[in-house]
């Protein structure tokens, strides 16, 4: 069974892909690796060729706020996953599902109010 599942119509596409990848690499290697000039001077080693050299460490501590906002985002964002299937079949399943979704939103709202009152959304 395994192996027979690549349909034969896709074979030309595969060959085309392989040829283009090989050609691309070959051209790159020939043009820059063999034909190209290699002359090193200090300007070549700056991160931006005609920009201002960077000052200080690139790694610095982020405010812990970012993590808290990200965590809250993840939680409230994921809950939307339940709204989509509900919205799609809403006209078919009627009042019962509507009440359930209202309860669900109310529970989320309690969490939202809690975070709000705890100043979880304040930026500084």
């Amino acid at each position: 069974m395994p192996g027979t599942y690549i349909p034969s119509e896709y074979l030309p596409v595969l060959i085309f892909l392989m040829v283009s990848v090989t050609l691309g690499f070959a051209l790159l290697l020939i043009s820059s690796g063999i034909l190209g000039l290699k002359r090193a001077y200090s300007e070549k080693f700056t991160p931006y060729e005609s920009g201002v050299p960077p000052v200080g460490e690139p790694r610095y501590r982020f405010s812990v706020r970012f993590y808290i906002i990200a965590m809250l985002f993840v939680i409230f964002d994921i809950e939307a996953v339940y709204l989509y299937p509900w919205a799609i079949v809403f006209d078919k399943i009627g009042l019962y599902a509507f009440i359930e979704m209202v309860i669900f939103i109310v529970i989320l709202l309690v969490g939202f109010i809690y975070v709000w009152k705890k100043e979880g959304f304040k930026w500084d």
Partner: protein
Amino acid sequence: MNLQFPDLTPVMPELFMTALALILLCTELLVKKKGILAALSILGVVVVAYTLIGSSGTTFGGMFVSDGYSTFFKVIFFVNAILSVLISIKYIAIERVNFGEYYSLILISTLGMMIMASAADLIVLYLGLELMALSTYVLAGFIRYDIKSNEAALKYFLLGAFSSAFLLYGISMIYGLTGTTDIKSIALYISEKGLTENPALSLSMILFAVAFGFKIAAVPFHMWAPDAYEGAPTSITAFMSVGPKAAGFAVLGRVFMIAFASIKLEWVAVFIPLSILSMAVGNIVAIAQTNIKRMLAYSSIAHAGYALLGIIAANNEGLASMMSYLMIYAFMNIGAFAVVIMLRSEDFKGDSISDYEGLSRAHPLLAALMLIFMFSLTGIPPTAGFMAKLYVFMSAINAGYTWLVVVAVVFAVISAYFYLRIIMYMYMREPKVEVSLSTSPSLGLALGVTTVAVLAIGVFPLYLVELARAAISGF
């Protein structure tokens, strides 16, 4: 298609519990005195316990069942929640983490346990498990400024999440095999199609055993327990050494007795080594401990081994003895932790075993209470712990595992060494440090309730056992 409104009577306790937890969360924003929240949560749990009466039935298309079995376990969870709140009130103030979220998290965790005990479908089971586990992780790390508490939460979280992934893989295997997640339908499908020999069935059974081995802290899945129990706030150690363990046993009983009934011989063969190892490692390593919370953690591992004997017996009598064991364990373990909490004051940790030296001179009443709890944990009559062990051993003997009971008795004798060592320290050594107790009415109430329960069940055990048997009869 218009969905019918489901019958809500069986889920009334859970609905009330949810409402209670949410109300507490909102009240916390308005109320400055946290004692009110504790009182409200205890009152609320009592109301929820009242709604248990007449809540039997099946609802949500058979996904949720409320029967005698689940009701008995819910009573254990309520006892656990109420006693844990009682012992916390003063303690979390001493630890400077007197936040209101504490109580709602305890209630949400209890809600998760209730859902686990009532789950008749693996999806509901998973959701209950995660609800319980996620709130317990937070509770374990509740002392935010203490690195030990952070570490406890981290270890508990990492291994808990790891084990629930195993559970999910087991669920997906059994779903692929039988095409359903309903526990009763799984059993029906397996026996109809003759899938008993299927390796996927054995694999998913083993994955379930691993996942719940983690939850009940059975060896070799116990490595998180000592660190998590030592680092967590003491009141939460008491809470999570009883609640999640009992919930894990509730699920073990239901899933293995019903869904995996056809491969009973295989899972009994898996649980026998788990039980022996738990008793051996728990009891022997506990001897070497110098921290009392850590010692009680190993003791809790050993008690999981004893309670597993009821599962190994694999009949209604075994389950009933396991249920009464867990109920008794709730009282005696929380009682012992209440004593540990009493020793904790602002500038004194009081969790080292040497702090108990000569306790009987300064505080004879407290030493006497600790004596009762230690006797009970060892299993010395006339305390409840003896009755708990007796019934579990009886059920295992009746099921034909006499050799296993002999092994268990040997380890129970070994356990006497480290339990009685505390008593020896309290009564036969001279006090080294001046221990001042941090008493409070609620802590006194909790100690009173647990002592009376341990002694009363020890003297009149039949009432509890009959209750467990009646609860299991409709299983």
